[in-house]
């Protein structure tokens, strides 16, 4: 198992490097000059100095190498500094945002909690709703509940979050006035009343994102349960006179969870992508909104770093899914 895990980790390093290079090259090919927005009265030599200070002007491989060092060496050291109060890599050049001239990772850390709260909570809620629905609709296949579940998950697949989000705003905040339509990130939770306010503003974005998750996971859960319910060992368990409850929830469910767990792990990076849109709808100033504003402001270091963070998430969760699959099902270890 250890060799399998190690090999998977080693494969993901070149993958990440190639992705980093692809993102770098894509931004490199892009037309447009970061100093184009500056006044025309700036003399050309000063303009050239500004370009140098933005880290441009050097040959391409040098810049790529520098960015890699900054991202994989300097930034992690700064994270360690933040945690343990040490002073590694003090004064080393960090990845700077062109918009604010402050380190990109500092801004990312400021925005991360909002995204994690909304996205993470929605994923947990979505999975928590999806699993029972999937189990029950497989157990009562073709029942009214199953048909309704299929229909709802079809809707979850088909209604994009930028419509479902706007729709719940129309219904629950414009017509009924139950929830606020804008997510207030400066809100501090310190007592019961402020907790209720936080809960009320979180419900809509969380439910919109959770609908998507529920639609996918519940279908997987159902299919996986159906595969297992027809197996011989289930019949054996019934023949032994076990209660339905323990046949379904202990024997079948445990085996059915194996593929579902990996699907859940694989879905995590996707939900960050979905968060880009949902954050835009509910005006949550998280990572997705940061990416959109950076793209609109042509802030290439920020865009590059954020895109690469998304890529790391995808590779990381693919790795987790693979390893989990091996841990849960000993038949598919390749060592």
């Amino acid at each position, binding site marked *: 198992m250890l060799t399998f895990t190690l090999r998977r980790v080693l494969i993901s390093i070149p993958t990440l490097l190639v992705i980093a290079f692809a993102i770098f090259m894509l*931004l490199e090919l892009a037309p447009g000059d970061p100093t184009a927005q500056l006044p025309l009265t700036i003399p050309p030599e000063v303009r050239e100095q500004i370009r140098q200070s933005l880290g441009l002007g050097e040959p391409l491989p040098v810049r790529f190498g520098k960015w890699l060092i900054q991202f994989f060496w300097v930034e992690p050291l700064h994270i360690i500094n933040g945690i343990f109060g040490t002073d590694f890599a003090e004064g080393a050049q960090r990845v700077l945002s062109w918009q604010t001239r402050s380190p990109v990772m500092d801004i990312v850390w400021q925005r991360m909690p909002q995204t994690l709260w909304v996205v993470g909570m929605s994923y947990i809620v979505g999975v928590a709703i999806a699993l029972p629905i999937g189990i029950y609709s497989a157990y009562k296949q073709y029942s009214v509940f199953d048909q309704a579940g299929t229909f709802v998950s079809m809707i979850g697949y088909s209604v994009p979050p930028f419509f479902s989000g706007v*729709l719940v705003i129309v219904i629950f905040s414009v017509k009924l006035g139950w929830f606020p339509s804008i997510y207030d990130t400066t809100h501090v939770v310190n007592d019961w009343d402020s907790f209720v306010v936080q809960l009320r503003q979180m419900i809509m974005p969380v439910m919109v994102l959770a609908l998507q998750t529920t639609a996918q996971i519940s279908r997987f859960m159902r299919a996986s349960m159906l595969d297992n319910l027809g197996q011989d060992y289930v019949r054996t368990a019934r023949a032994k006179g076990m209660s339905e409850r323990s046949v379904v929830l202990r024997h079948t469910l445990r085996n059915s969870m194996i593929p579902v767990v990996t699907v859940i792990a694989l879905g995590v990076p996707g939900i960050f992508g979905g968060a880009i849109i949902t954050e835009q709808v509910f005006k949550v100033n998280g990572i997705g909104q940061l990416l959109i504003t950076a793209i609109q402001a042509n802030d290439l270091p920020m865009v590059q770093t954020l895109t690469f963070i998304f890529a790391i998430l*995808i590779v990381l969760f693919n790795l987790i899914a693979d390893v989990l699959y091996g841990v849960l099902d000993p038949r598919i270890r390749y060592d």
Partner: protein
Amino acid sequence: MTDRAEDAPVAGHEETPVAANPVQAAQPQNVSHGSRSQWLDVWDQFRTHKGALAGAGFFVFILLAVTLGPYLWIYDPTYIDIRARNTGISLAHPLGADQLGRDMLARMIAGGRTSVSVGVTAMALALFLGTLIGVLAGYFRKLDGPLMRFTDLFLALPLLPLLLVMVLLFRETLSANFGPETGIFLLIVVGIGVTSWMPTARIVRGDVLALKEREFVLAARSIGTPDRRMITRHILPNVLSPIMVSATLGIANAIITESALSFLGLGFPPDYPTWGRLLYDATDYLQQYPERVIWPGAAISLTVLSVNYIGDGLRDALDPRIRGR
């Protein structure tokens, strides 16, 4: 549909002699079975899936509406009638008019035209790339490793952020070269196509690998069929069904992605309506005129829903193991 309706009574009529004289009458019955094509069987199975049938009906309706609509409803989607602005549902404007007094129905038709054509074109591109890479990887053993690593790499890319970056970076160059509308259309179609071929490639590769071991391929090879004809005559027709299913999913995916881009303000220019753009524009007037959000949103959702149902029905209909039942 009409073919089948005519076919059924004939087949029923010929069954009577079978009971009377089994030896002789077996022949005509066999002939009538032989004349039934595979696609009639598929259609028969497809018809039993009610959701798929309804979905197909709705999708045909949308296609007709966006192609024939401009001839029936001859309002110009960009014509500004400032006195009609923000009017609700009326006889002159069945879906109302927007903040500049442009007719919403005409804009919906024009927007649908763009959205559906982006969906279909991007799907075709993704299918082409996916089938090409899948067949090459499955058929030629040497290409399998590199091409599949390439596919894995694409699957690990953060697609929506990259798509946003691509649109941002190349919008102006392409607009300058091809004109604002064609340029952005090309950019979005190529962007969506290039970022969504991977599932098709994987499925096609798997099927080709399995097909390659079958006897008819061996037979074809033994009479000296060259690789090119082998792929076009023997492999491709047999991987058609997974390709068709992923075509439907591809349309759904492309329509949603295009609308998402337009919704984020990085899609088509403002004066060029698409469903996503209409939705985006209408969110500013959400409080006063919520119905303007509903029209494009419902159009996107229902189209995608119908396409998904078609895919669901097609998957069942094209699977010969299910079709028999």
